[in-house]
């Protein structure tokens, strides 16, 4: 290779870093999607009853409802 410029050396260093990072990312332990999604579904199932936005709350407990009745002037 003919003379390397500073920018070429930089991009080589950058590429090395990228490869290093990709190697790290490639080596992590992965589980199957079937297992992962089953776990997500299980979590939803277990916590569904406690989720007010899912189950809805009875009107009597709604903290945002108007406290006064409307008055027609």
């Amino acid at each position: 290779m003919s003379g390397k410029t500073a920018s070429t050396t930089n991009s080589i260093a950058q590429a090395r870093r990228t490869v290093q990072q990709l190697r790290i990312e490639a080596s992590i332990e992965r589980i199957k999607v079937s297992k992962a999604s089953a776990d997500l579904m299980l979590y939803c199932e277990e916590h569904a009853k406690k989720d007010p936005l899912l189950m809805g709350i009875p009107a009597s407990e709604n903290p945002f409802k108007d406290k006064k009745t409307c008055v027609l002037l």
Partner: protein
Amino acid sequence: MCDQTFLAIVFGPCDKCSNEKPLRAVYIKSEQLSYCSLCVEMDGKVIVWDSFTTNKEHAVTMPCTWVMACAYAPSGCAIACGGLDNKCSVYPLTFDKNENMAAKKKSVAMHTNYLSACSFTNSDMQILTASGDGTCALWDVESGQLLQSFHGHGADVLCLDLAPSETGNTFVSGGCDKKAMVWDMRSGQCIQSFETHDSDINSVRYYPSGDAFASGSDDATCRLYDLRADREVAIYSKESIIFGASSVDFSLSGRLLFAGYNDYTINVWDVLKGSRVSILFGHENRVSTLRVSPDGTAFCSGSWDHTLRVSTGAPGWVVCFNRKGQGQGLGQEN
């Protein structure tokens, strides 16, 4: 070009302008029986609201007119905010009317570009920030010292979210380089990265169990990424939705995903089925931010129409906060 810089060019900081004052970040906290929500405005004010009475509890005027991020400390005793001033400042909250909150301000973080997101970690002592300079950073609040910096994004970082405490010291960030990256807070290392979006990622939020996270992007889709399977597992999109999602949050059980869009609507997605459950109208301009309350009973959406709306599971109930200070409780909407 990232949406954030577009904002800065088009709107420009203008104190006198009464149009277009977008609300950027909303955080909801509950203490005892009342909710408080933090409202952040482009005219440089940070307002703490009591969401039950719709009264303003605190208002701090920031020296910088562009506040883009805000966060509540876990103890509820302080707030952090920042924006185009490139800094993140912490203000202790006081109920004493005589004290000037702005005087007690502490500058914690310094970036070389705007601050897009900030969040306290598990304690009041550390703050995590994301910036337009492409980095995230962890700061010590007391000394203002930089504890750890996170380099890896190729463009502005727009959002971040911390993993729920049981699952350890990681956080996820999303940026204009279309990547969502998961970081180890102690080592500063990027553990995983996901690049399936077609445009800037505006918002990331962890699934309640901490095993997955959702992202909302300018490509009009929201996506769910599973961390243990290390891949995208769901896309929430419809052909009819063509505007970007600005903000996402999960309901308490993780079954519902609330997403605010730039077409003024909020779509509610069934996380497991991938289908849209509901669409909420009401805002008169783009929804810029959305957050579900910690106890899961309601969610609050902030918009460029100068209002914050709190919606609960009870059908049709919406409370509207107007930034001018009059909280208007709206009755049932059809």
